[in-house]
């Protein structure tokens, strides 16, 4: 049997089962358990072959499906007791319907958020509440930062011979230098900063100082395009100690 499920990222076993139900147009209240168990196990097999980590929940669901399948195959014995025999699938259906409900609700929530994102609040606070603070780093990764850094290094003249000397610049010193630069301007370009550096080691230390300041939330870095200019923005501290230090 050909197997052509596209490897969506499923949030869990319920998500995966709902995918099969939707794809095969199955009535959720009358699930062909043998069919869906087979599909499910095949998918798990594919995941195993691809060496994808299988969360315990997936295995647990496989066990549940097989148990239901067995229960449905077994003949019902006590015929004399006239009580309603519960369909072994009932609990599974209940869980699936419940999950589907919130999954749909989450899509509606997403639409609400998308609608709301089209409006920007008017006020002067930089830490605006509807803003995601991550936004400034959203389109810049470590690689981009590294590439920009490499570009600056390449611009420096390559010395023909080397003289090893003890570095005069320290991380703190360069951090202070940046803070001093920020006293005059709110936004700095990395290329500008690098252009006043005397040698590669100073650029390196300054870059490390920037990384450190990003880590301690003193700075934000942003970049418009890949390999583009890196802009540094100082984050205003509430207690102003940064400015006082400088």
């Amino acid at each position: 049997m050909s197997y052509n499920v596209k490897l969506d990222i499923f949030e869990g076993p319920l998500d995966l089962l709902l995918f099969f139900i939707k794809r095969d147009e199955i009535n959720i209240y009358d699930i062909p358990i043998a069919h869906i168990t087979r599909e499910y196990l095949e998918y798990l097999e594919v995941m195993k072959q691809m060496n994808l980590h299988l969360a315990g929940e997936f295995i647990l669901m496989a066990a549940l499906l097989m148990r239901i399948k067995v229960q449905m195959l077994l003949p019902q014995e006590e015929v004399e007791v006239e009580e309603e025999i519960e369909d072994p699938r009932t609990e599974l259906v209940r869980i699936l319907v419940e999950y589907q409900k919130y999954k749909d609700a989450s899509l509606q929530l997403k639409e609400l958020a998308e609608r709301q994102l089209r409006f920007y609040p008017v006020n002067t606070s930089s830490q605006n509440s509807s803003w995601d603070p991550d936004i400034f780093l959203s389109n810049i990764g470590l690689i981009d930062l590294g590439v920009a850094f490499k570009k600056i290094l390449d611009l420096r003249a390559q010395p023909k011979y080397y003289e090893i000397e003890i570095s005069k610049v320290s991380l703190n010193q360069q951090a202070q230098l940046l803070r001093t630069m920020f006293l005059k301007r709110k936004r700095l370009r990395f290329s500008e900063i690098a252009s006043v550096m005397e040698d590669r080691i100073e650029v390196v230390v300054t870059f490390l100082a920037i990384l450190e300041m990003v880590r301690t939330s003193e700075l934000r870095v942003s970049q418009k395009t890949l390999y583009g200019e890196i802009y540094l923005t100082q984050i205003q501290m509430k207690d102003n100690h940064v400015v006082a230090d400088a």
Partner: protein
Amino acid sequence: MLSQTHRIVQALLFTAQEPLTQSQVELCIQEEVNLDEIIAEIGDYFEQEKMPIWIQKIGQGYRIMTRAEYEPWIRRLFQDDGNVRLTRAALEILSIIAYKQPITRGEIDAIRGVSSYLKTLLEKKLIEIRGRQNGPGRPLLYGTTSHFLEYFGLNSIQDLPNLKEVEEVVNVGISEDDEEGHADQ
């Protein structure tokens, strides 16, 4: 014509960092006001003057927002791609908490069939801890925050899309067995 009070409220709206409430305005003006009415009149004024802003009711307060049609330019200013920065999992967890709060992590996990990671949502202040459930292990209870309302542009949690409607979507073409639908509030 707008009165001095209208202009004061406008000034407050422009500078407030969170949705401006009736009690805040009364505290500032030192007299009772009908904020809903004032807001409506200022809103009309913005409209008449074709200003790029409008007033949105969020939670218990009001906030001046830019109009949707200016989004493309503002987005460039903020270098924002306009995408919702929440993962599918996060949205699922949020919707469960929103509809069933206060709720424990165990209950969320039971609905989703997988374990749920709440730390990011807590950090983004979209959810908060509401206390502990009386029961074994006294698990923490979670609920949505006022920032949640702001993020989704809701007046109150009652403004959430009706779960029943969602249910109807689920039940398309299914007749019998409807006992499942009444499992929650």
